[in-house]
């Protein structure tokens, strides 16, 4: 690969205002070591196809905007080195299992709406404390480790694009929203199992997962949504028989009274939420 001087992008194009069906167009650009797929797209837009459209923001695998199908696998364009693909022929398409807005831009709203429906936040009774915090909710390192990896999800949609069940069953919630249900159900600060159970207990629920495991294989952040869904299934089975370990949302720990601030460390800013 060190001799590679050119790289060819075969990109699926579709403009609903102009095209009746998607088609592929081919662009060849100069390769420089360290070039990512996203940087190549910018180069194509600047020099060859100014009307080419995709979605991107942070350029460092954090925002989850630039998910697309790269050589048959859902990946983040910013996080993918061309040299890692082992070829100078790239085939790019928008993420499968989503409607296409234009070119490489998928419509992620159905996924995000489902995610929103499943209460992906800490649910507690003490709303006043959450609005105006007077302390912190206690959580041990061990408690944190139970859900930490699931909290790395950036909602890029790669798992949804890779899931064969999402491809065939539009009622299924999909790995991202269900993974986040497990993430919050496992959080010791949370007391929202029952409301989430109502939200997922229908046809969109975890029992639709056939455990293909593709979601975990493609996740660019190393999250294991397939595991989250299996753990969620276990919770739901135990819940039917009343055997699920009930957890009280963790207690509030007040601010330490005797602690002194070290010199040069500024006061924490006021909460904004």
């Amino acid at each position, binding site marked *: 690969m060190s001799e590679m001087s050119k790289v060819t992008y075969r990109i699926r194009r579709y403009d609903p205002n102009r095209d009746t069906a998607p088609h592929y167009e081919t662009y060849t650009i100069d390769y420089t070591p360290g070039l990512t797929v996203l940087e190549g797209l910018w180069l194509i837009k600047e020099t060859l196809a100014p009307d080419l459209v995709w979605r991107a923001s942070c350029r460092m695998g954090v925002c989850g905007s630039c998910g697309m199908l790269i050589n048959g696998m859902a990946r983040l364009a910013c996080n993918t080195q061309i040299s890692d693909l082992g070829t100078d022929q790239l085939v790019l398409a928008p993420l499968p299992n989503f409607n296409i807005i234009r070119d490489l831009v998928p419509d992620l709203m159905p996924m995000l709406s489902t995610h929103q429906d499943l209460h992906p936040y800490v649910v507690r009774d003490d709303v006043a404390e959450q609005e105006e915090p007077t302390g912190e909710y206690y959580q041990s390192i061990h408690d944190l480790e139970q859900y930490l990896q699931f909290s790395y999800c950036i909602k890029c949609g790669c798992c949804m694009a890779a899931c064969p069940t999402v491809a065939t069953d539009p009622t299924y919630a999909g790995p991202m929203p269900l993974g986040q249900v497990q993430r919050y159900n496992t959080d010791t600060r949370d007391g929202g199992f029952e409301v989430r159970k109502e939200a997922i207990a229908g046809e969109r629920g975890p029992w639709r997962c056939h455990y293909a495991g593709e979601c975990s294989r493609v996740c660019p952040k190393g999250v294991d949504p397939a595991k989250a869904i299996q753990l969620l299934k276990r919770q739901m089975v135990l*819940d039917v028989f009343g055997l699920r370990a009930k957890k009280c949302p963790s207690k509030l720990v007040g601010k330490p009274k005797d602690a002194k601030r070290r010199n040069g460390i500024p006061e924490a800013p006021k909460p904004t939420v």
Partner: protein
Amino acid sequence: MIRDQKLWTWHILAGAVILVLLGLHMLTMHMEGVVKLEGLNPASAANEAQGGGKLQPIDWANVKARSAKVFYLVTYILLLGAALFHGLYGATNVVHEANPPRWLHKTVSALAVVVGLGLFAFGTWAAIAAFLLAKAL
């Protein structure tokens, strides 16, 4: 609906029940020479004690002896119920995941319930009738 959560849980449990009962079937019908549990084929032991030849699990004496046991009556009915529920619930799910129109969705579900209950009633009657007949013989 919470119903899906419960039905799916029972689907999994029915699978576990089938696994255990099929193990029992293998022990009774196919592995009698390997795992010698006399209670599984009661007529075999009795026949050998009387100096008779070795009986097969499908020989009439063994079939009759098994049918007369409450243990087998219960396991037959349990296996029937578990297999029907597991199979029909799984089959309806396969159809549902193909995303059929709502009317077909409901028709398949209703059909599965009717067929399942019908076969269960018929199979239970057959098991009880065989039990009573074997007792009478």
